[in-house]
């Protein structure tokens, strides 16, 4: 099931190569991308209810790997390079399920949207896009570090081309693409070193994440401070760059401004989540001790990127750069959530009498993962809206817009809804994640969370100030008098995202249940008994 | 050593001398045609030796194949390249001295080797006609080499034809 979801897009990409004309490719790509979406939905709906089908059945890997990965559902495991202890080991749990579903959803929507906007080199675009989808899905699905790294790199290459080739000329796409590629690659190189270190020092030399986590307590790489810190930093760098966290974020605005609409939707929607997913899948369970000692530092970085992100966003004149910096801001919350969870000391995790730290840790992680999901939905929507605006006005200078609420009411309405969701208005998706993160992180990183809260005000400020004021309100000037409102397909692209924003805002239980189950498991694994 | 033994040794020596003489003639005769004929003589000598080793079938096959086919082939070749015959100055090329010494050493080494090595002799008398047994052996135990050789001959046939074609 999982392998099907992961590799269907790849198969689609290959088939596309053989299709003759452009609109055949477009129609095929869209229909084909619906299949993984359907499968992912079925998996999400079904997966909690089928315990026996979901567990690690039918896996050919060694018994201790099976034992270690009981919590992971829909597991499949085939020894790939037994000599090196590498297995094609895939499996999902409450955390990766929503992200997978989001990946498939956003890819389908972006393909649907770009079907009418991309006219140059259509075949390559759609093939690369599906390849990118496989790369991303692969990362969320793989439970083997080696496999994780491979998919991590696969995800990188198509994005480079998407930015490089289909980017907008005036934003120096080549410079942005190379910067994006090299920056992330540098990070992933450190990650590779860390993976190899883990492999070398793990007792049964293996790359398998569940096994490594299970044997963490009595394994050399965890006990030896030097190795565990080095490995932790290796992983942290790769994920921080991808997040992006404060000092490593400069590639994001360039990449976003240059990327085509569909590209930046997927880049912001999912590629940023790879970093976050890395935190939760690798850093938290495998390096609780090290992460704990670094928690304050990382928390500080997170808070800086929240406040700093919102401040810089406020100073932006380009709509897309503003949204890019807003992503830095939102991602700051995610890292804050993880840092807060990591800051829980061991005994706080174990004995409940000390006060419900376990619950607050769980809230932090729930909040972080949900924030990732909602950020994907909201920023995806925002980038679509920016793209649609760019299609019409061919400029992203905020100063030139005004009074769109009157001239293009539907666009105005949707932008208003997304803007408020993004700034975290309760009742819409943005607030839930942030609230849970803040709720969770107050217990452990109180002071930092206070500063983060200020960030929230600035977020509201810069969004309203720059976006809503400049674009929607005010006197509509003659230049945009005959601006066409949203066409059918554009509305259709945004409707699912809008519905998601409202539904999650009002009743987030259906996602939080899935995530909560997995968070409890993660926290238990973190506590070294 | 009874009479018969002596006679057989005498006969052997005679045949050996004749064969070697013919061999030397093949090698040394200036006129290639004569050399070819000397070669035929050697073939007959070798056939005789086979007879002395009681391998009649092989002797006759030797005559049939070597004398009947290969000698004729060589004669044909000599005849076809006859134009060169007259201008034959010396049939020995420049490096014959080196060759002679090397071969001399080789022969001495071989001779010593032959004398030194304790050959395993199992002196079984040959009773009756060996040819039927040979026939069966060829088509049973040595079937594969037999087939391979047949293919080889086919290949040679075609190869020679193509190479020598006008």
């Amino acid at each position, binding site marked *: 099931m999982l392998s099907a979801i992961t590799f269907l897009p790849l198969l689609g990409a290959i088939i596309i190569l053989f299709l003759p004309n452009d609109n055949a490719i477009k129609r095929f790509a869209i229909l084909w991308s619906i299949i993984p979406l359907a499968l992912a939905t079925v998996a999400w709906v079904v997966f909690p209810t089928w315990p026996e089908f979901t567990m690690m059945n039918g896996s050919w890997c060694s018994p201790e790997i099976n034992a270690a990965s009981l919590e992971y559902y829909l597991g499949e495991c085939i020894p790939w390079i037994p000599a090196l202890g590498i297995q094609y080991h895939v499996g999902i749990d409450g955390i990766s399920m929503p992200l997978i579903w989001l990946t498939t959803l956003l890819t389908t929507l972006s393909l649907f949207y770009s079907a009418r906007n991309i006219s140059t080199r259509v075949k390559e675009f759609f093939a690369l896009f599906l390849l990118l989808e496989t790369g991303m899905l692969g990362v969320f699905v793989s439970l083997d570090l080696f496999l994780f790294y491979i998919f991590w790199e696969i995800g990188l290459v198509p994005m480079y081309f998407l930015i490089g080739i289909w980017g907008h000329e005036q934003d120096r796409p080549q410079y942005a693409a190379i910067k994006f590629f090299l920056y992330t690659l540098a990070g992933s190189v450190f990650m590779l070193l860390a993976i190899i270190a883990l492999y070398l020092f793990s007792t049964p030399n293996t790359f398998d994440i569940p096994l490594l986590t299970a044997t963490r307590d009595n394994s050399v790489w965890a006990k030896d401070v030097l190795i565990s810190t080095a490995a932790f930093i290796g992983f942290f760098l790769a994920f921080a760059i991808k997040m992006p966290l404060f000092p490593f974020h400069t590639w994001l605005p360039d990449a976003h401004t240059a990327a085509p609409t569909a590209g930046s939707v997927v880049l912001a929607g999912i590629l940023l989540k790879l970093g976050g997913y890395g935190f939760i899948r690798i850093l938290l369970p495998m390096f609780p001790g090290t992460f704990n000692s670094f928690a304050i530092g990382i928390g500080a970085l997170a808070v800086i990127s929240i406040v700093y992100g919102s401040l810089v966003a406020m100073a932006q004149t380009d709509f897309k750069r503003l949204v890019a910096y807003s992503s830095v801001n939102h991602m700051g919350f995610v890292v804050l959530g993880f840092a807060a969870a990591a800051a829980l000391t061991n005994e706080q995790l174990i004995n409940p009498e000390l006060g419900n730290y376990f619950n607050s840790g769980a809230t932090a992680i729930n909040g972080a993962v949900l924030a990732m999901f909602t950020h994907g939905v909201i920023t995806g929507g925002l980038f679509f809206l920016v793209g649609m605006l760019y299609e019409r006005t061919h400029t992203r200078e905020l100063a030139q817009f005004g009074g769109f609420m009157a001239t293009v009411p539907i666009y105005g309405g949707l932008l208003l809804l997304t803007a408020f969701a993004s700034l975290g208005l309760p009742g819409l998706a943005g607030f839930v994640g942030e609230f849970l993160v803040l709720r969770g992180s107050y217990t452990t990183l109180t002071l930092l969370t206070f500063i983060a809260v200020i960030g929230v005000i600035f977020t509201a400020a810069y969004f309203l100030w720059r976006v809503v004021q400049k674009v929607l309100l005010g006197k509509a000037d003659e230049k945009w008098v005959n601006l066409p409102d949203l066409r059918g397909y554009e509305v259709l692209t945004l409707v699912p995202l809008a519905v998601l924003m409202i539904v999650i805002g009002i009743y987030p239980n259906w996602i939080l249940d899935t995530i909560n189950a997995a968070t409890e498991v993660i926290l238990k694994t973190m506590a070294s008994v | 050593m009874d009479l018969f033994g002596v006679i057989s040794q005498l006969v052997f020596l005679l045949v050996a001398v004749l064969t070697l003489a013919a061999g030397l003639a093949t090698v040394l005769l200036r006129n290639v045609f004569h050399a070819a004929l000397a070669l035929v003589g050697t073939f007959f000598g070798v056939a005789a030796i086979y007879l002395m080793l009681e391998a009649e079938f092989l002797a*006759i096959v030797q*005559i*049939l194949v070597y004398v*009947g086919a290969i*000698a004729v082939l060589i004669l044909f070749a000599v005849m076809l390249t006859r134009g060169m015959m007259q201008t034959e100055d010396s049939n020995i090329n420049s490096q014959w001295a080196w060759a002679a010494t090397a071969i001399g050493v080789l022969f001495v080494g071989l001779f010593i080797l032959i004398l030194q090595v304790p050959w395993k002799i199992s002196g079984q008398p040959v009773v009756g006609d060996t*040819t039927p047994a040979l026939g069966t052996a060829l088509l049973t135990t040595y079937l594969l080499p037999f087939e391979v050789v047949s293919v080889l001959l086919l290949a040679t046939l075609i190869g020679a034809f193509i190479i020598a074609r006008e």
Partner: protein
Amino acid sequence: MDIWTLITDPFVTIYNLLRSGIIGLLASLGVPPDWIALIVFLIMGIIVVTAILIVAPVMMMYMTWLERKLVARMQDRVGPNRVGPFGLLQPIADMIKFLTKEDIVPEGVDKPVHLLAPIVVVIPVILSFSVIQFGVGMGAVDLNLGLLFLLAMGSMATIGVFMAGFGSHNKFAMIGGMRAAAQIISYEIPQILSVVVVVLLAGSISLNGIIEKQSGLFGLGWYFFYLPVGPIAFFIFLLAATAEINRVPFDLPEAESELVAGYHTEYSGMKFGLFYLAEFLNTFIISAIAASLFFGGWQGPFVQQIPALGIAYFFGKTIILIGIQLWFRGSLPRIRVDQLMNFGWKRLVPATLALILFTAAFLWAYRVLNQFLTGLGG
């Protein structure tokens, strides 16, 4: 030893008598047994050889006579009748002619090759006489590879022809030699293969073995009458053999009209005589082989009882076959070289291969049927 055996089988009994006589003589002289064996071996050997050396030339002479008589008859003329009654002494006259004629050796000739050529042509033919079984037990030696030996001797002729052609420094001779060699080589294959058919049937290569296999049914046991295969094999063998010895239909090498006398143009006197002798002896050998292989050699009614009849039967059959050969000479035109080659390679070789295949299949089927029947019966 009694009279009856003497009458029925004179030559063999005389030979044995002689042999035991000498042994007894030597034993009485106190010669050590192996020496006796050696001496007896030598003497008897010499006797047999001389017998053959006498019979062969005489046969040859009277074959020339027969040939000239028959061919003349065919061409509606009388043939030699001046020299002796019915020209019977003509061959002796020819013989004297050969001996007395001057033996010219042209200048520029490759002397050793030129001189050796006739000898190399004659020796194989005479050697092949040693294997032929003239009568019951009347063969000089009964090699169990007799037939193969005969074929080997046949193939040696090429060398002689080559030497003659090459050695006589004469373009016609050379071309004649080349043609002869090519012809002999290419017809050797069909000849051997047709003989293989008989070997398959008889299961043995020694002439005696084959002849004994053809006994029975008043002659119907001969391989000639082994119907589907017999006649064809005989006919192909005859053609191939005729071509081997450059007899009439295939006598391209010494075709008078084109190449003066082929490879033996430069020869005269006794050397030419030898060539002539070789030719005729070859004809005899071919007929003898054909007779032994296909017409049962010395086989005939009552030959067991009266071995002597064997000789009569053998010579009768051979003379008839020689007659056929002469008949060829009288009636068939000479064929062209390319026809010769074409016929040899593209008709005869495949035919004989097919024939061998067929006979092998036939024998195998017969044996299986046999086993089946016996198995059924048993």
